[in-house]
């Protein structure tokens, strides 16, 4: 029995050590998507539950494995007894009853721990101070609408940091415009799917500012892999400033009117919106404040002039199979258009 205990302890320590390593590695790395480095209440309660479950399953593993290895070593055939058969035992009601009842008890414990956390996360009421965001999944990008704030943006979600004393959690209403998607930022919360005709809800209350990465987790078509997402957790002041900027109509600069005309007279406006212009398409991301985002193509490329130019001329070079068509613009039109897009701050 002592040996079993030691094995269990070693097992538990080594598992704990592994996760500590992973957590440390994550803390040092800003682009981490580690489920063991939680930064928000839902992710944290999941993390604590997972440690509990890992401990129980680890103990079960150690016990059963010890029994298995012991019986293999102890009862292996030896040449001395090659010709005789061992005692023919058919079963034992007491032993079988024991190893039926003990697993039942374990299941009851695990179930109660699970039900508690499910209820705490899933049925959490929305406080009045919450920020509401409607997330709409598209093939292969994210649309974010802030109904209380009148902001529409894409791919890069901005939310305020939540002070435990005065929590300002963010509640996401999840919708889909086409196929199924799944919103997953591992350090902030578990994932929830965006299913057409089936609105879902999830929430997060990050404790630290910073950028958190994630991506679509439910297969949604050709470019599921590059449907990335990033969440920028801002201080309340930064968030208020960001909202103020996003609410502005698009900058109207006379010097780039040629580029604006290119935008408004080509297929761009079928899919994209720019507030304050005739462009009001909903199929692609809102471009009113395109330059306030650090990436394009749902995170597939950094938002640099070269990448943007490439994206307009040949989207397949960045994200093969995305629904953005190659725009086939002449060089002068493209230069003008780029000039216009770069003013959309």
């Amino acid at each position, binding site marked *: 029995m002592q040996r079993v205990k030691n094995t269990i302890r070693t097992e538990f320590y080594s598992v704990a050590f592994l996760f500590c390593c992973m957590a440390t590695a994550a803390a040092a790395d800003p682009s981490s998507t580690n489920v063991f480095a939680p930064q928000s209440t839902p992710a944290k309660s999941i993390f604590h539950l997972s440690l509990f479950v890992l401990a129980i399953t680890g103990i079960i593993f150690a016990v059963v494995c010890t029994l298995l290895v012991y019986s293999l070593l102890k009862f292996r055939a030896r040449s001395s007894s090659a010709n005789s058969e061992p005692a023919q035992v058919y079963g034992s009601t007491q032993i079988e009853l024991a190893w039926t009842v003990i697993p039942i008890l374990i299941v009851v414990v695990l179930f109660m721990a699970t039900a508690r956390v499910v209820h705490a996360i899933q049925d959490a009421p929305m406080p009045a101070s919450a920020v509401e965001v409607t997330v709409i999944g598209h093939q292969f990008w994210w649309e974010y609408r802030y109904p209380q704030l009148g902001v529409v943006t894409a791919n890069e979600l901005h939310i305020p940091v939540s002070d435990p004393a005065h929590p300002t959690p963010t509640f996401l209403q999840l919708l889909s415009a086409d196929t199924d998607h799944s919103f997953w930022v591992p350090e902030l919360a578990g*994932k929830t799917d965006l299913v057409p005709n089936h609105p879902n809800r999830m929430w997060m209350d990050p404790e630290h500012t910073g950028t958190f990465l994630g991506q679509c987790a439910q297969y949604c078509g050709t470019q599921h892999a590059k449907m990335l997402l990033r969440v920028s957790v801002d201080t309340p002041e930064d968030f208020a400033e960001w909202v103020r900027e996003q609410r502005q109509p698009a900058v109207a600069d006379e010097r780039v009117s040629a580029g604006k005309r290119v935008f408004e007279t080509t297929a761009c406006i079928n899919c994209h919106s720019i507030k304050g212009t005739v462009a009001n398409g909903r199929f692609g991301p809102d471009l009113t404040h395109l330059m306030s985002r650090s990436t394009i193509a749902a995170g597939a490329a950094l938002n640099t002039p070269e990448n943007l130019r490439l994206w307009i001329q040949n989207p397949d070079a960045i994200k093969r199979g995305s629904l953005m068509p190659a725009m086939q613009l002449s060089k002068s039109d493209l230069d003008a258009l780029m000039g216009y897009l770069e003013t959309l701050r």
Partner: protein
Amino acid sequence: MSSNAITVPGIRIEGKPLVETLHEWITTVDHKRLGILYVIYALGFLVVGGVEALIIRIQLMHSHNDFVSPQVFNRLFTMHGTTMIFFVVMPVMFGFANYLVPLMIGARDMAFPRLNAFSFWLSAFGGLLLYFSFLGGSGLYGAGNAPDVGWWAYAPLGARAFSPGHSSDYWTLSLLVSGFGSIGTAINIIATILCMRCPGMKLGRMPLLVWLYLVMGGMVLIAITPLSAAQIMLLIDRYLGGHFFDTQAGGSAVLWMHFFWIFGHPEVYILVMPAFAFCSEIIPVFSRKPIFGYPAMVAASVAIGLVSTSVWAHHMFSVGMNSYANTFFAITTMAVGIPTGIKIFNWIGTMWGGRIQFKLPMLFCLGFLFQFLIAGLTGIIQATVPVDWQLTLSYFVVAHFHYVIVGGILFALFGAFYYWYPKVTGRMLSERLGKWHFWLFLIGFHVTFDVMHIPGLLGMPRRIYTYEPGRGWDTLNLIVSIGAFIQAVAILVFVWNLIVSYFKGAKAGNDPWDAWTLEWSTSSPPPAYNFATVPVVASRRPLWDLKHPEDPDSQYE
């Protein structure tokens, strides 16, 4: 098989021409030949599905790799999953059922030999139809050829708006056709077990393998029918203006998920029941003891069969069911662990106090035990709903179910190959090649699937054709890919062993393992009629009774 040329003194009868032999195989209704056909067919598709897996692993070796396009990658993982589930593991398990069940219950054939042949050819046609999509699938400009909607084909991806052309029609029709084949075979297995047992073989005396196949047959009937219904509804959506799953017209994507997983989860147990069956035969023989707690094993099998029909929505914890539904499916899923645990304990109980011989079938079964234990525990971790919100749809899940299917089912299946190959061919598989196969496959398996859990924990979703650098996934994926190639080498050794031993293996004799069930009482390979006289049994181990008349099992029943 070895009866092509018969020599009678003074008269020489020529071997049959090849065409006639082929004709015999194609028109056969003999359960043993159909069993062999099922197995060979499945092995062929195992190689195809394996090559697809290798291409997937080459693509994922490092971030932003460009070995295949996203379109091709999506086709590959769709075809890999569909092939492995429907055209490898299902047929190979049916093949073993066909071959073994009549022999083990002392029957001369299945209950419905013609239905048996019909079902096999339906399944075979289904697989060919799926792969014909590579040639016939492209219809519209820009529409792909082979299906790329995933083996689960979540609505509305399968709707015409998102899946133009005919690629997903091939998927739908091939599963429909092979599904009818599966239903036919399941009916046949159940009827055979219930009606064709030899005198004295009461239900309580059947070998556990037969019991498990009885449960498996019943589960096929329960599980495949909703899948077939869903496929028909999808066809109605696509061609007759239906809106079951067409969300653009108010259909329900969640309904498809329920239909798919009410098939999909019992399906896992349909595949694992035969693996349990093989272990329940092999472990006692190589421990030289009867199975520990036979009645508990039977009860646990039936319990798994029943409970597993009420766990399907644990595949849908992230879909947005309410908290009551989520907790319900959590407890049912955890509850499956109880009878499964009983089985594992009973196998250990069987070995306890035995004289364990580490022959190849036993080695593979021990691999099964160890890996299935881990797979079950990671399953319990995922049954914990909130933890599953992190783990589902990530590479952790991919690692988990490959642990079940490769580490569990495939290991038990290899054990079964090494155990019954002598009965089927009359020759032993090479022990030396078998050891190479075992160790290479064991190492490759653990290099691949142990490591694969970690990228999931680090946030790597499944079904992505490429990934971003700098997330700590690169090295792990490279290791996973290397392991996949080690496994591929092991499979080549195995196939080579099957071929070489057929011609050069040591003669097996009737009963090379000193075993106790009826199939070992007849010649290897068995004659067309199986038994010259129908056997009569008085216990669960008729051959033990025969070999130990001083201490027969029948004395204790």
